[in-house]
Structure formats: C-alpha cells, structure tokens
C-alpha cells in the first residue's frame, strides 16, 4: 500500500510538472511577445 501511494505521488507530481512546463512557455512567450509588440507600436506611433 505504501509503495502504491509512493508511485501515485510520483505520478501526480510528474503530471503536474509536465502540465506546468507546457503552460509556462505559452504564458511567458505570450507576455514577452505582447510587451515587445507594444514597444514596437509605441515607437512606430511616436515616429
């Protein structure tokens, strides 16, 4: 039973980890992309 719980805990962490890693680049990339785009638009509008 203890061993089963241990494996379940590892699997749970693994699923959470993979999910976070898949979401993380998407969020940070979108944020970085939007910031860069805003900078660019600001420069263009000023010009």
């Amino acid at each position, binding site marked *: 039973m203890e061993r089963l719980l241990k494996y379940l805990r590892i699997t749970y962490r693994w699923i959470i980890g993979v999910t976070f890693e898949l979401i993380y680049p998407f969020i940070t990339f979108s944020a970085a992309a939007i910031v*860069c785009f805003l*900078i660019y638009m600001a*420069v263009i509008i000023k010009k």
Partner: protein
Amino acid sequence: MIPHFSREDVSSILHYLGRLIYGMGIVMLVPVFVGVINMEWAPSIDFILSSLICLCAGSLILLKFNEERDLNWRQGMSLVALSWVMAMFFGAIPLYLSGHYNSYLDSLFEAMSAFATTGLVLVNNVDHMAYAYNFWRHFMCFIGGQGIILVALTLFVKGGSAFKVYVGEAREEKIMPNIIQTARFIWLVSLTYLVIGTSILLFINLLRDISPGRALFHSICLFMSGWDTAGFAVQSQNILYYHSPAIEIVTAMIFLLGAVNFGVHYAVWTGRPHELVRNFELKVYMFSILALFSLVCIGFIMQFPFPGYVPFFRKAFYQLISAHTGVGYSNITVQHFLYFWPPLALLGIILAMGLGGSSSSTAGGIKILRIGLFFKGIKKEIRILTSPESAVIVERFHHIRDISVEDNHIKMSAIIIILYVAVYLAGGVIGSFYGYPFLPALFESVSATANVGLSMGITSPLMPNGLKIVYIMQMWLGRLEFISVFVLFKFILSLKSPQ
C-alpha cells in the same frame, strides 16, 4: 608541466571508442526499420552496409584494446572530443551513399551539423529524399542533442568514468547523485515530450489533410529536430513549408522546452514548479528575449519589408526565439534575410544566436547562465568598490538552489565567453577572406559555432571546401565548449613530441 599521454591512455581511450563505434552500428539499424516499412529497399541496404562497417570497425578496435579501465579526467575529455569526430565519420557513410551529397566532405559537414544540433545543411534535393535517409538526418540530431556520450552512458560506460565523460560533453550539472540516473532522467524527459510533442504535431498535420503516414513522419522529425534545437526539417523550405501558425506555435513551445536546463525539468517534475518562476537563468533568458526583440523592432523602423504588423510580428519574433534557443527553424527564406533584413535587425539575431540557450540543455552558444553570472560579477565588483572596506559583499542567485556568486564562477564564465566571441569573430574574418561580406560571414560563423543553423546563404554545396572544414571545426568546438577539444589537441601534440 602538463604530463604526456602514455600507451595506457591511448589503450583506454580506444577501448571506449571501439564501444561507441559498435554502438553506432546498432543505432543505424533504426533507419533500416524506417526504410523497410516504407519499402525503400536501396536505402535499407545502404544502412545495413553502413551498420556492418561500424560493427566491424568497432569489433576490431575492441579485439585489439579489450581491457576496460576507469578513465581519468584527460582520458575522459579526449574520448569525448574524439567520439564526436568518429560519430561524424561513421554517421556520414549512409548520407554519402544516398547520392544527395556532392562529396564525402559534404556528408561529413551534414553529419557534424546534425550531431552538434546545428542545422546548417549541404544536402541536394532534400524534398525528394527517401524517408530512411531523412529520418537518419533527424535521428542524428536527436542522438547529438541528447549527447553522444550521454547515449553511451546509459548503455555501456560504467563506474568512475561516467562523470568524466559526462562533464566533457559540456554538461557540468549532475541533476541526480548518480550520473547514470541523471542520464536516464534526461532520457525520460525527452521521451515524455517526444510522445506529447509528436502527438500534438500529428494532430495538426492530420487536420491539414496530410496522409497519416507522412504526417507521423513529419511530426516525429519536427519534434526530434526541435527538441534537440537542431533545426533540420523534412522539406527544403524548413518551417515555411507548412505555412501554419499552429505548427509555428507548437514548434516554438517544443524548442523553448528543449532549451531549458534539465535541472529545472527535474525540479518541476519532482514537485517544485515554482522553479520556473524563480530560476535566475530563465529570468535572464526572458529579459534577453525582450531586449533583443526590441533591437530587431528598432532595426525595422526605417525599412519594413512585411505586408503588415501581424506578419512582421509572426516572422520576426519566431526568427528571434529560434535564434536564441539555438534551434534555427525558419519561417522566412534565406533571400528574405539577405535582401530585406536591415543590419540592426540582423545584429539582434546574431546576438541572440551568440548568447544561446540554457546551460545543461540541448541548446548551444555561450549560454544564458554565463551571461547572467558575468553581469552578477560586475554588480558584485561595483558593490565592493562602493561599500566600506570592512563590508562583506555576498551576491546570490537562485538556480535550482540558492547559490552565492564566487570568483571562480565569474572566471570560468568569462573564459568561455571570451573563447566563444574569439571563435565567432575568427570565423567571420575567415569567411571574409573567402570573399563574402563581413556581416553575412559573421552571421554564418556565429550560427555554426553556437549550433543554431540559420543561414544567410553562404552555407551551400558550392561554398569553398576550406570554409566547410572551418565550419565543421566551429560546430565541433561550439558543441563541446572548447575544453575537451583542447585536451584532445594536447593529447595529439604529446604523441608527436618526445617524452
């Protein structure tokens, strides 16, 4: 004085080298399987022949040097540098037999480019290449990106030798206490994402009405090349071939994850997801992407070769992150780079390529952690100079755990940064000597050394042979981060000079 290499050193190195070549022979049976299921008989025979050559060469070396000993540091380092050269020579055999290369040198270039996960190509007519050969090109990227030695570690390097060869392959961080466990963890991460990434790409390709077999082939190849930040693609037009924003987003996610330190993957997978937010290297990475994309944007103020802002953003941002992670996937043509990109925007891409991805990942280049440490070192020095003499200044950063910046960290980072910059510039100057303008020559040199694979058109089957050899050397040096190659040079020189 540095000691000379002895007969015992040679024997130990050759023993493990024999095993590696033998292993190459076994690995070459995978494309045979791809060839057989696609009923490509001639390519399958080429791979069987190449495999037999490797098995025979490996067996002969093992027969002569059959004693297994633990490797010391210099043996381990020399073995790593030599392994990559041997992998190039043997991996190029099936490529040459394919008939898609003008010479054996061209296939050597392509093999080194694949193993070093560079992505510069000299192949002719890749659009009509047999599946087996094309799979081999991408499979070499996968093996090289994981690390030829890391592949071997999981198979047949044991004991105290393991850590020495692991470090020699430019991976300093031991993620787990045991190096074999570390190698297996790296495989676990890669295979997990292989399944996830390939499935998502397959789904997108099927939605685009590509036949199931072809969609699976494209998806696997795109994943292997993207995850290991190589940049090879099945078609000559690279990612531009698909004209698909969905594929661009998914490949971007794949190569960003591939360019993340395996230590961070381990932390996140073992219940510490906040590492993604706290990690110093990732923070520097995001800052660097923002700063360099701003530079690219400024470059395009005077000259705007895009039909609108959205296409501009899609193309320019993809190119920047592709350059920064070292993958070299491209959604524009070489001519677009050459004729329409202003110098300042190109400088942004060159800097992104030069800086590279995370340490202990599949990416190349200087590595973001070193850049961050270098600036931390400058900050520490300024704090020391502006504080009272009795003050104790401690500069810290979080990378898997809290670490204080030591002089040794800064020294090693500075040495590697200087070496990379010197090789970048040297390659640019050599390219100029061959008659190419300096900016494209520098672009190509940085792309080769940082193992990126973006090109401004210099890399082609028609470029001078001398330059092909220079780029092969740069790819090799850049992938192994110099030190193990320098130890190998010392080894070769000590064999020639008297004791």
